[in-house]
């Protein structure tokens, strides 16, 4: 699923304008506020749905090869987080919807859960 489509389904705004972000192809998603759970999932083109906004989320995403992060409930990360995301080339999105609603919308749109191994 293209990131452009994901943003539309979630009424989300891009916080960072990563290069070619619109055409980024996402194949699965994972919703959590636990960093080790992000690291538990095994998927290469995964989207992270979270309510946590500190820089360590970006670090974790990078290590886990997460392609994009969606912040739920209108949360906006601080400047430090945004700068780090830019440096790592990870696009950030913010949506007004809750984690449950975001997950439901994407699942319904055909985006599967990231495989647990």
């Amino acid at each position: 699923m293209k990131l452009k489509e994901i943003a539309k389904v979630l009424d989300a705004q891009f916080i960072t304008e990563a290069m070619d972000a619109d055409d980024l192809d996402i194949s699965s998603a994972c919703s959590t506020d636990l960093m080790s759970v992000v690291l538990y999932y095994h998927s290469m083109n995964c989207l992270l749905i979270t309510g946590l906004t500190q820089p360590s989320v970006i670090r974790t995403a990078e290590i886990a090869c997460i392609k994009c992060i969606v912040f739920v409930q209108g949360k906006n990360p601080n400047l430090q987080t945004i700068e780090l995301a830019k440096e790592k080339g990870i696009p950030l999105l913010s949506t007004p919807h809750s984690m449950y609603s975001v997950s439901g919308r994407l699942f319904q749109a055909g985006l599967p859960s990231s495989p647990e191994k």
Partner: protein
Amino acid sequence: MTPEINGNVEGSFQLIGGNFTNAGEASTQLKMKLFEFGVDDAIIRRAAIATFEAEMNVIIYAAAGQLHYYITPENIKIRVEDMGPGIEDIEQAMQEGYSTAPEWVREMGWGAGMGLPNMKRNSDEFMIESVVGEGTTVHMTINLNE
């Protein structure tokens, strides 16, 4: 610095307890190094996850530590040792969901009790030693050729 001996590469990073700002830097650099060597993406990812979890535990629980890596054509060996409180019951600590992380750590998204299980799961060989009051050492080996 990464001295190269007979095609083998080794290096180390100092880790400082409580330093969340640079947390993950050692793992990121190791990841880049493996990428330069043309290591398979899935193996790089496993090594990065295992290293990052070990790095985070030092930052969260210990005063200071060191991460050492040694890469050969066959495998990568990672040793993470710290000067920290040590672990009293290793078997209990290895269980998924067991965590003593304080509230402020949980607020940052850590403390699921999945770190040690994640390290074990992503490495081909895993060993942990700990002395209460002295520190903890984690040894991990990840094979580069499946």
